[in-house]
C-alpha cells in the first residue's frame, strides 16, 4: 500500500471517530473541558475566587474563532510550504521516490 493510500485511510478513521462522538452525544453542549473544570473548582472550593483575569479576551465568539482559524492557517501554511519545498528539492536533485511499503 502506498503512503498516500495509507494516509487517506487514516484520515477516514479520524473523520469517523469525530462524527461518531458527535452522533453519540446529540444533546450535549460541547463546551470546553476547562469550563467544566471551573464549575468543579467552585463546587469543591466555593470560597475560591480567581485572583487574576485574562489580560485580554476576544470580544466575541466570532473574534475568538477568527484567531483560532488564523492560528491553524499559519501552522498549515508553513507545513504545506515545507512539504512542497522538500518535494521540489527531491525532484530537482533527481531523487527517485521509492515506496518501500
Amino acid at each position, binding site marked *: 500500500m502506498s503512503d498516500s493510500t495509507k494516509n487517506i485511510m487514516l484520515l477516514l478513521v479520524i473523520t469517523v471517530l469525530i462524527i461518531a462522538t458527535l452522533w*453519540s452525544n446529540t444533546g450535549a453542549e460541547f463546551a470546553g473541558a476547562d*469550563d467544566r473544570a471551573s464549575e468543579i473548582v467552585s463546587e469543591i472550593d466555593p470560597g475560591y475566587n480567581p485572583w487574576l*483575569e485574562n489580560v485580554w479576551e*476576544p470580544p466575541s465568539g466570532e473574534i*475568538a474563532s477568527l484567531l483560532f482559524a488564523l*492560528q491553524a492557517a499559519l501552522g498549515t501554511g508553513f507545513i504545506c510550504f515545507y512539504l512542497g519545498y522538500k518535494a521540489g528539492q527531491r525532484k530537482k536533485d533527481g531523487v527517485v521516490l521509492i515506496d518501500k511499503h
Partner: protein
Amino acid sequence: MGAFTVIVGMHIMEGFLPIKWALFWVIITAPFLIFGVRELNRIVKDNPSALLLVAFAGAFTFVLSALKLPSVTGSCSHPTGMGLGAILFGPYIMVVIGLIVLLFQAILLAHGGISTLGANVFSMGIIGPLASYGIYVLLIKMRVPRWAAVFAGATLGSLATYVVTALQLALAHPSEVGGWYASFIKFAAVFGVTQIPIAIVEGIFTVMVLNLLFKYSEQEIASLNILDRRSCCE
C-alpha cells in the same frame, strides 16, 4: 459567574491556581526551559538543515492546538501536537515550543493564562513530550513497528498532559472530604476522559505526518540520530 466565562479549551484557566501553586510550577518549569533553549541552540548549530524541521514541529503544534474536537463526554478539548516534535528531536526542545503556543493562546485567546503558564508548560511542554519520547524509544527498542511506536507515544503523551493538568488542579483545590485524591478523580473525569478519543485522533495524525516526513526529510531525520544521541547523553 461572569468571571468564570472561559472560551473553549483545556489548559488551567487564568487565576485558577493560588499564587503559591502558580509560583511552585514556575520554579519547577524554569530549569527545563533553560535546558530546552540550550538544547534547541545545540540542535540548530549542529544541524542547520534541521531548523526548518524544528519550525515544522512548531507549526504542527500550532495547528493541532487550534483544533478543538468534540469528545464522548460531551465537552471539547484539543490535541497538544507535542508528540511529533518530541519523537523527532527528543523531549527537551518542546518546552520552548510549548511555551510559545501557550503564550499565544493566553494573551490572544484568553485560553489558559499568564499566572498558570508555569503549570501549563509543565504538563504540556514537559510531561507530555517526556512521556511521548520515552514510550516511543522503549517501543522501538522492543522492535515494535515504527508506526505503532509513534501512535502509542503521541497518544499516551497527549493523555499524560491532561492527567497532570487534573493533578495540578486537584493539588491546588483539595476536597474537604477525601483531600486532593477525591478532587483528582473529579478533574480527571473531565480532563482525562475527554482527552481519550482526542488523544487517539492526535496519535493517528502524528503517524500520518511522520509518514510524510520520513519520506521527504529522511536525511535530516537521520542526521538527528535520536536513538544514538539518547544513549550518549544519559
